[in-house]
């Protein structure tokens, strides 16, 4: 057997769908397992639509497309319900991430799986919005008082709420990075430049969508789901361009993160670009999957997990948080 299979298999087929023609049965099985693990099976299916593939693969991809379409119907309905609730308290519905891409009909939304409903509201409207959502059937999911207090004190979003009838989660953000992070984006600018993408539904401007994607991936998390995030970035660049991006990123204090996200997205999905040594470490982590879709490269994963906490919190708070979580047995990178 030649070179071991990893996330680059998925990246190369996303970049050049015609490459799928070279795949044999084992290659397809690995590709499908990795795409599922990265929650990109619907995106892959959309990308390969119309291409000649083995009959069994065609069936799997067809199911994935149907499933993604149904998921987007449900996500769009969830947004509509939230729009109605927010309109009662005089707030605009500003959609973030997947739901925004889907409602706006952006390429990044094609086949994309959508989990929670992420929205952005002004910080001074948080209490009103929270009360309105609770009134409309959403309930707390974090029963642990430490977690609840942690969210309210240190996070850029309310503790997640789940709807008791529809079993769907909503994340209400008031900015795009935790207040404890060293970088402080400008939420007023995010809100001010939001654009209407459907009647009564808004999204960040395309440039701010890119800034948000980069912030979420590189200044907040441990790179989990990074292949999907960077596909979003790649599609946004292709569709909306990068004019003014550098300036906008600098305004939010995220010029390094945005530049890196652009380089990483290009390395994975775009035309040949130049990546440095540090970028290669990121790519090593981002593509850490084997042909069973298993998470590989545990040392690198752990390093990025620790880094995510380092970025998110000052050292004293981090120590306290990890201590509390360790005693509760909850901390540690997700395995997959």
């Amino acid at each position, binding site marked *: *057997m030649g070179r*071991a*299979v990893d996330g680059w298999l998925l990246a190369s087929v996303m970049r050049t769908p015609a490459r799928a023609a070279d795949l044999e*049965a*084992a290659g*397809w*099985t690995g590709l*499908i*397992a990795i795409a*599922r*693990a990265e929650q990109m099976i619907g995106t892959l299916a959309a990308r390969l639509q119309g291409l000649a593939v*083995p*009959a*069994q*693969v065609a*069936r*799997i991809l067809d*199911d*994935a497309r*149907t*499933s993604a379409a*149904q998921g987007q*119907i*449900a996500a769009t309905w969830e947004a509509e319900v939230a729009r109605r609730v927010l309109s009662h308290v005089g707030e605009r519905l500003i959609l973030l991430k997947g739901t925004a891409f889907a409602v706006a009909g952006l390429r990044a939304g094609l086949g994309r799986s959508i989990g929670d409903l992420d929205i952005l509201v002004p910080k001074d409207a948080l209490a009103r919005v929270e009360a309105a959502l609770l009134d409309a059937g959403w309930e707390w999911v974090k029963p642990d008082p430490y977690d609840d207090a942690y969210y309210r004190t240190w996070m850029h979003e309310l503790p997640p709420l789940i709807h008791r009838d529809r079993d769907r989660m909503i994340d209400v953000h008031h900015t795009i990075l935790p207040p404890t992070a060293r970088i402080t984006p400008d939420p007023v600018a995010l809100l001010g430049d939001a654009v209407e993408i459907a009647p009564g539904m808004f999204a960040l401007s395309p440039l701010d969508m890119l800034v948000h994607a980069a912030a979420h991936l590189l200044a907040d998390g441990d790179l989990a789901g990074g292949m999907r995030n960077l596909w979003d970035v790649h599609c946004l660049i292709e569709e909306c361009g990068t004019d003014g991006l550098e300036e906008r990123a600098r305004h939010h204090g995220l010029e390094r993160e945005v530049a890196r996200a652009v380089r990483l997205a290009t390395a994975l999905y775009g035309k040949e670009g130049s990546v440095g040594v540090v970028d290669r470490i990121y790519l090593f982590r981002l593509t850490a999957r*084997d*042909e*069973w*879709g*298993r998470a*590989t490269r545990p040392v690198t994963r752990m390093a990025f997990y620790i880094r995510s906490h380092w970025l998110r919190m000052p050292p004293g708070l981090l120590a306290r948080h990890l201590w509390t979580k360790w005693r509760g047995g909850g901390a540690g990178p997700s395995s*997959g």
Partner: protein
Amino acid sequence: MRAGVLRTGALSVRHVFSVRVGPVGFRIGSDWRAPIAALERVYAAYPAPHGGIADFSVRLFAARPWRRFVRPAVMIGGDYVLPEAAPLPLAQGLLAAEMGMNLQMALGQRHYLLLHAAVVEREGQAMILTGASGAGKSTLAALLSLRGWRLMADEFALIDPRTGLVHAFPRAVSLKNAGVATIAAEVPERRLGPLLAHTPKGTIRHLIPDTTAVAKMDCPARPAAILFPSFGYARATRAVLPSEVFVRLTQASTNYVALGERGFDTLTRMVTTLPAFAIDYPDTNTAIDQVEAAWAAL
């Protein structure tokens, strides 16, 4: 059916078995040989996935490297997983594999509407037996398969939303507790898997489906009736109203909500066109009699 060893360096999946059950291909990888050997015996007569490409992957792995050897405990992984699933002892590896396959279907299957049900067929017409765990679906389906019916499914009925047909998914029948002795008394030893004692579901033993079930597993059938068996009551048969059937079937489906409108349309069509009966039975012979009577009256 295909077994083999796949190596990709340090983190190898040591033992692999691929199999197709009805329309669905599975690839099962394991850190241990024993569960794969059990699968090879139980599914000896089954083909490999179409084109060698499995619909779903299942992995049986040790929670920590040393747990491959010390008090080996089998974790269930795969394309779709439930967080915090408890591991099983290695002696129950076959059960772990079966649970892994069930999980992929329950969480990942979108081609068919899934009903937690057993299905038997005669003359191209299918009877769907559904109900809560312990209602006796598996034992009843196994017995019917020994009385001239074709076994189509023991765990999941696969309803095609496009055609309304039920597709066969004849996995090994998971006999539980009292059902084990009932069936073991009627079949030769070679038709049975290993006895799995003290599992989370009690004593389990798998019945290997007969050659007809495997040979005809690519033949779908037209659903003809829905039965709701309940074991442990005096003999009674009553018709069930469509409204109740609808509610019961939504509860019996693992992907009704995920299918959206397709799920609703499929279920509505079944509920409005198929007769449904609740069958209370004190013992299996009575149940067989009731099923035959219901069938004759269709």
